[in-house]
């Protein structure tokens, strides 16, 4: 794919994720991760990442992402949003 085709592909995937209920920021992050890790010349429609590529450390960034997800989750009632930030 040319860079322009990749960009078009990324936009279509972001739109598809948003249509599935994924919020726009997460959809953009997710597809951005795919583009960042896609080997040069690989077809993003059929490429599958090795598990080692998926593994990233459970660091502050991972905790921050999990915290944001907790606050945003409709499954967590407002009264328990701050539970995991207990002092």
């Amino acid at each position: 794919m040319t860079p322009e085709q990749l960009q078009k592909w990324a936009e279509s995937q972001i739109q598809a994720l948003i249509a599935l209920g994924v919020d726009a920021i997460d959809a953009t992050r997710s597809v951005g991760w795919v583009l960042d890790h896609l080997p040069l010349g690989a077809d993003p429609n059929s490429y599958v990442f090795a598990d080692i590529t998926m593994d990233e450390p459970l660091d502050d960034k991972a905790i921050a992402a999990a915290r944001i997800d907790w606050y945003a989750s409709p499954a967590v009632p407002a009264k328990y949003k701050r539970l995991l930030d207990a002092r």
Partner: protein
Amino acid sequence: MPANSPLPGYTFDQDSARYRSSETGRFVARADILGLLEATTVAAEKQISTLTTAVMEGRIAPSVWQEQMRSEVKNQVIQQVALGSGGFDRISQQSYGRAGADLRELYAKISGTARDIAEGKISAAQAQARANEYAGHARSHFYSAEREKVQPSAPNKVFIERRLLGGGGATCGDCVNFYDAGWQPFNVLPEPGTDSVCRGNCRCSLVRKEVEASEVGEWIGTKK
């Protein structure tokens, strides 16, 4: 979150290993904690099911499904570890290690399933069954983390635990055996979702009771 947030805040009582509302001073009922565990797991399963339907129908690429699955299970595992630990700031190194090792195994399974989807080797039903199992996997981390935190309130007291079935008519034979074992010494029964064929689909829970050490024998094996 700022200290003057309109949302109620909490503290975590290390001695009792329980959350306490800063507003009312009351402990949060364990039933509410288990309710959160269940609600967040069900929400993750629903989202993962939606994503899996979409990848099977060709609406999203396997690589995008793979990344979404990775994020979803990672968030779930961290949240359930934090829920059992007393919050994000109290996750122990042991829990981090267990979570990291488990996530690496899950990533390998997700990659394998993504490959099978890309190559058209599995049916929609098979893909859904696998994805659902990955989604529910985080549940066991809550119980492991929680076990690390609880301490008897006095030297002459000990905890005993019992498995409660949660799978309705779909409960697996392993879980029925754990249930039939009744009350057992602390840490003897496996966490729901481990050592059973239902794995991430397990809906059981683990209840705990503090008893006099001298009375443990009267409880073991019973369901009273």
